[in-house]
């Protein structure tokens, strides 16, 4: 049986983990916007803040994504009269709730609320799958043709990237013989990170996660010049704000998951586990992954959904299959 933290710490963590993760994800979202803006010869989010609050915020406007969300939360929410109201209103909350639940299972800098749970990988996979599902249902229920087309694209794209992602993650599970994400981190810290041990899985999962982040080559479901905003076309006000919070959280959760799976959770050990240093390294590595994502975002135009499907089944899927074979080969020949 896995060992959990005391109940008081778990209760505190239930509140603190989403708050801290949201603060970090705001910084990640800012970085994604700023880096891609600078690479596109733009200014990006406004740089200078008023003098009075500089002592608190510093000179950069790091919290621009937060202000955007706050603005949306103040605004009026309009539900189309032809939409299926209950589904339309529930979908964003379902997406956000499942994403927050997924956060509890993802270790961050050595701290994890439920990471020791024996099936935490399975739980994360399902909870992350809830996000596109909720978006699909929400878009389809909005009664807008753009929402319907966006929902269809979202579903197709999810099918395309989910398979390589699952293959890549389960290749690790086969190698470490566990379904718990904390055990995976322990396994990597005792030997070497999976990035070196199984690079095929790393590439397959990274590409799948780019699809999940919905940045440039794969922002197909929200292609603004084609279908306005896809599933979120009819969303406004608070509901759109909830979806924005969800998206912002995703920009942090995706690098965090990658670090845990392939970079050994960014743990720093001196004699025992050094928590502050691990946390710092963790944040540094996730910012680095966001920069890589921003470069991909800047360098590529948008795929059409059929092209994306073909691309995913040509490269990441094959890499995922190779990763599984590689994992078995390493296990059978007993290299570890």
């Amino acid at each position: 049986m896995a060992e959990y933290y005391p109940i008081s710490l778990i209760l505190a963590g239930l509140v603190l983990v989403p708050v801290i993760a949201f603060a970090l994800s705001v910084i990640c979202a800012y970085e994604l916007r700023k880096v891609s803006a600078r690479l596109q010869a733009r200014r990006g989010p406004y740089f200078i803040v008023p003098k009075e609050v500089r002592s608190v915020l510093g000179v950069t406007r790091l919290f621009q994504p937060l202000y955007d969300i706050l603005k949306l939360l103040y605004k009026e929410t309009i539900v189309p009269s032809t939409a299926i109201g209950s589904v339309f209103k529930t979908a964003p909350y379902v997406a956000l709730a499942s994403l927050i639940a997924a956060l509890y299972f993802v270790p961050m800098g050595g701290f994890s609320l439920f990471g020791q749970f024996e099936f935490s990988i399975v739980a994360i996979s399902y909870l992350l799958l809830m996000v596109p599902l909720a978006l699909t249902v929400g878009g389809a229920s909005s009664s807008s043709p753009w929402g319907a087309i966006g929902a269809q694209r979202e579903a197709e794209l999810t099918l395309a990237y989910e398979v390589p992602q699952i293959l890549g993650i389960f290749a690790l599970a086969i190698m470490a013989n566990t379904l718990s994400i904390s055990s995976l981190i322990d396994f990597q810290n005792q030997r070497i990170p999976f990035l070196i041990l199984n690079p095929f899985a790393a590439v397959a999962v990274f590409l799948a996660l780019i699809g999940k982040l919905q940045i440039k080559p794969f922002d197909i479901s929200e292609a603004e010049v084609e279908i306005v905003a896809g599933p979120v076309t009819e969303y406004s006000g608070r509901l759109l704000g909830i979806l924005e919070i969800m998206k912002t959280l995703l920009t942090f959760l995706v690098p965090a998951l990658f670090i845990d799976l392939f970079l050994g959770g960014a743990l720093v050990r001196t004699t025992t586990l050094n928590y502050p240093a691990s946390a710092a390294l963790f944040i540094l590595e996730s910012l680095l992954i966001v920069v890589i994502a921003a470069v991909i975002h800047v360098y590529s135009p948008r795929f059409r959904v059929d092209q994306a499907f073909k691309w995913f089944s040509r490269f990441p899927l094959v890499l995922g299959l190779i990763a599984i074979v590689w994992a078995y080969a390493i296990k059978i020949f007993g290299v570890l």
Partner: protein
Amino acid sequence: MSVSDQVRTNIKSMLGQQDSVETALANNRFNYRIPAEKLADIAQYLKDPVRGRLAHISVIDLGIDGFDIVYHYALDHLEKHLHLNFKIRISREDPQIASLATVSQEAIWPERETMDFTRVKFTGNPLTQRLWLPYEWPNPVEGSTPQNNTVKTEDTLIVPQNPLRAQQSLLLLGPYHPSLIESVYWRLKVSGEEILDAQIKLGWNHRGIMKLFEDKNYRRALTLSERICGICHISHTTAYVNAVEQIAGIDLPIRARYLRTLLNEFERIHSHLLWFAVAADLIGFKTVFMLALKLREDVMDIFEKVSGHRRSTTCIQIGGVRFDITGEDLTHIERKTKHLESKTRDMLEWARDHPVVRKRLEDVGRLPYETVARLGGVGPTARGSNYKVDVRWSDSFAAYGEDYTTWDVVLDGGEDCWARTIVRLKELLVSYDICYQCINYLRNNSGPYLLEMNNIPEGEGLGKNEAPRGELMYYIVSDGTNVPYSVRVRTPSYRNNSLLPEMLKGYSVADAPIIIGSIDPCMSCSDRLARIEDVRTNKVSILSLKEIARRRNKNGRILSN
């Protein structure tokens, strides 16, 4: 025997001895006045063996005398400068004439335009809906009954359909949509994401400019012509002065020719760069959008330096150019042009090498040579399908002729969006080359660049220009006063927009923006009342702005009735 002699002899024999009235105008243009029943035969002859282009159909309101319908046939792609105008007079009491749509499909749009705005009726035109005016407006010929109610019922049936049972649905793109920079309304019939049928509706930016021309004198009309399009203002003024100078018989000074060429080429450069940016955005490539627009700023700087304005420079005048470009300005322009050229070569390389760009553009929006020739495409759209039409080459004006500059027409046989992209990027390189030649002449020579303007005599002129989007045509009729009697404008997007429904069929909704964008549509050019629709009751009311203002309630919302 040249094309012009052969065609004219044949037309003479078709008309017979008693009807044969031919007037030769300047610049290899010929006017014919023919009886209405001979028109179909001549059109058939010019369409099939000759392969001429029906450029436009103008209608001139002669007041009590009736209407003059002028069919402009452009044969300049066969022989330099050759144009034939066929005039038919119809009476005011019974303004009817048989449609040419069965003979040449190029006639459909001009005939619809004429029917929208005048009382003239073309019997047998297959397009039964309004193209410019709102669908519900009464037909001036048939009386006050709304033209067709079928459109409205179709709308109400299809939009709130149950998505689970829908096989086909109607996707309404526009009038305001992120992919459309200007307002245009598309009705796409789709099955899943595949487009089965497409229908276009224009008129969202109709300003009645052709009517405004009729009460402005020639010099003021020039600035009005500049306002037709925000992007290609120099092209419009050049085409306008080409027509006026043809009437007045002005022979341009050589320096003015080179200056006009230089300015026109800079217009093309900035417009193609803008197009490149927008096209990149349409396939989701924001980075290239930003970089290309940054590059376009250099051209804007050149305009500002030489004229004081970034846009609407009014640099072209009747009889020349408003200002001279000399000395340091030329050096500045040359330096900027060299910078632009090297960056354009870079962009051509990027576009060629990027795998996703090619995937999005190749085999998309296929436009076969036959379709272009049949429907009369112009500009880079036509040249991307190997159809050689370029006014600079065929009806050369200013310094585009062989005596002044040397350059080639860019052609590509790819027939898809990729080919049109390549044609535009290569045209940029050709434009830089022409610019260098002009700068070279301007630096080493001097002379007058603006002539005194005299009275404009009675007559008519057909002025053309190769705008960045294609062949632009002005037809001006002068009655000897200082105000033009009639001005008719045929913009390039007018012709290319009519190709779009053909191009969209069979492709997916994801491809629709880039297909529409690949012709570089300029809706304000093609367009020349407020309408309120109540979604729940499908009741449509047409209100003036004053009425809307009166019916606003305290919250500033418009009340529906």
